[in-house]
């Protein structure tokens, strides 16, 4: 039954044929420095000690694994929520930024840049920069600045400079382009904290490792709850895919566990206003990585669309491209409307207002089938305070 899939990257940073480092020479020294140092640096006991202590005392880990009783009754199965929304700053993003700020310090960097979509990664980066006293610049699409105003205010409060990305669709993809350009212009003193499992090797692997704490905790928490350390399915939303990578990580080679990656269908997969990369994407290169990507026949990147700024991205991390391509993970697409309905349902069934991104994962539960004894873990990647404007509009039109 168990089929071995090599879910580890090779020495050039490929998962199967996805990954690599397709970067201009200007980025080579910084990326190469990271590539040669990140494994030994993060394996160092001192690093681990500092990382674990910050996750515990500052982030508030372990995050609870909560049995969602009423939701379980509704679906006729057993649903557990991995409560990343209860982390400091309200999402899983801080697991990665804590790790990367420790890396940046060890590399002697004085200036931090980041891209952000929903603003959660921007807030998490601004937070760790304040924590260690480093200068922070966050690139954010002009469209996202407007639709995620509370997070922009939080970043400013934390001392970060938020720079609008004005090119292209003025969303996450363009913010990432601007951050990469900043890094090219500032090769000596700057570290780029990428917020997802995207970008050139070693970022996808490094970010997945920092996020893997999610499934590491899940294992012993499930053991406590149900007497076995694995669920039957794990459901997580995927933009770039960092919360999914963390939630899947320790189960990648455990075929007893269904891995469900939930993408944003926007107005619908076939409408031309979507971000469902696994359906609409073909193999290509974006932000330094060979992966699945929404593009024209001529290789021009197509502007994605989703109501959720965090899922509004035309690619997915190379790990997820590999998992979906090799059929290890299945992809489900959820529309804006269905995500909004799922957010409302989650709020009123469990008293938890999820982020719009996470609401896509909840909605996917409607598209799945279960047995009464199944155990399903939903990665509750973030809380929905930042999305209240969208939720209010939705409530007003019901």
């Amino acid at each position, binding site marked *: 039954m168990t089929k071995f899939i090599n879910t580890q990257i090779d020495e050039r940073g490929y998962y199967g044929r996805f990954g690599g480092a397709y970067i201009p*020479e200007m980025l080579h*020294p910084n990326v190469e420095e990271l590539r040669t140092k990140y494994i030994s640096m993060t394996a160092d006991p001192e690093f681990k000690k500092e990382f674990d202590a910050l996750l515990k005392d500052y982030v508030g880990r372990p995050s609870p694994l909560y049995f969602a009783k009423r939701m379980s009754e509704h679906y006729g199965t057993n649903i557990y929520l991995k409560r990343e929304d209860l982390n400091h700053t309200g999402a899983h993003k801080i697991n990665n930024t804590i790790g990367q700020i420790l890396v940046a310090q060890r590399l002697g960097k004085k200036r931090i840049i980041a891209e952000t979509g929903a603003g959660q990664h921007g807030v998490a980066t601004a937070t760790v920069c304040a924590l260690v006293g480093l200068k922070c610049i966050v690139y954010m699409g002009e469209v996202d600045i407007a639709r995620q105003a509370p997070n922009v205010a939080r970043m400013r409060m934390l001392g970060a400079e938020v720079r609008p990305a004005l*090119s292209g669709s003025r969303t996450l993809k363009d913010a990432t382009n601007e951050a990469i350009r900043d890094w090219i212009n500032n090769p000596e003193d700057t570290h780029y904290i990428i917020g997802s499992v995207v970008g050139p090797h070693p970022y996808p692997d490094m970010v997945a490792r920092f996020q893997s704490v999610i499934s590491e905790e899940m294992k012993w928490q499930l053991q406590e709850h149900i007497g076995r350390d694995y669920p039957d399915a794990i459901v997580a939303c995927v933009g770039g895919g960092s919360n999914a990578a963390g939630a899947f990580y320790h189960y990648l080679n455990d075929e007893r566990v269904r891995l469900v990656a939930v993408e944003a269908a926007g107005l619908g997969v076939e409408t031309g206003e979507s971000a469902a990369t696994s359906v609409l994407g073909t193999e290509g290169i974006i932000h330094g990585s060979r992966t699945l990507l929404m593009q024209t*026949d*001529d*290789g021009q990147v197509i502007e994605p669309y989703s109501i959720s700024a965090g899922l509004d991205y035309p690619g997915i991390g190379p790990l997820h491209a590999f998992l979906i391509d090799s059929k290890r993970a299945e992809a489900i697409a959820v529309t804006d409307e269905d995500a909004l309905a799922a957010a409302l349902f989650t709020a009123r069934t469990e008293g938890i207002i999820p982020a719009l991104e996470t609401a896509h994962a909840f909605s996917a539960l409607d598209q799945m089938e279960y047995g009464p004894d199944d155990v399903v873990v939903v990665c509750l990647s973030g809380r929905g305070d930042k999305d209240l404007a969208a939720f209010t509009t939705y409530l007003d039109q019901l």
Partner: protein
Amino acid sequence: MNRLTTLFKNKTNDLLNVYFTAGYPQLDSTETIIRSLAEAGADLIEVGVPYSDPMADGETIQNSSMQALKNGMTLDTLFGQLRSARIYTEVPLVLMGYFNQVMQYGPDRFCKAAHEAGVDGLILPDLPVYEYEQEFKAIAEKYDLQVTFLITPQTSDERIQKIGALSTGFIYVVSSSSITGKSGDITDEQKAYFARIAELDLPQPRLIGFGISDAKSFRTACGYANGAIIGSAFIRALAGKDDVSGATSAFVQSVLTPEA
């Protein structure tokens, strides 16, 4: 013989390479610009293939690329335009684009089409050295396309030697830690870097690019290499011009005219 090889054999100093974005300002400007650049004295021409996400380029080239895509530029259109331009001039042509475009078109099909359109070389800044050796080098050679790699102030001497051994075209010496489109005087630090590269005795010609914008910076760069590349400054000179041919000639003359 490849036109770049002929050029570098006949001229080793003060080579002027001008970059423009194909399909900008108008979709059909490509032929006019190539003819005008060649007639005005550009030694080689770098044809930018417009891309939606040009990672290494600054605002000027990104905006001209967006405009070119809006104008309807595609690879097939571009190859057609280059074939037409080739009727009038033997100036060496180098395509500059991003590897995703080559990958989607198909590396063999892309190189074949480029060769048949009269292209002499390629610059693909995000194609890694290893993937180039494994997947691309043989195809480029099959179609007689010389491939140019970039080096920067942060590139180690060891890596420069490696890149030098792999480059079949000229070496693109990126003048500073920067994206394209910066202007201003060349600093002493940059001059020291140019001198360091010159001392490495690379087998290929070296052209300095990024931040070269006018006669003064062109002259300075030529003092340290076989020539220089001007891109964003030319794109800016074309902006809003109806007479593309006239603007092109005037720009090249302004660069080649010795300072008073």
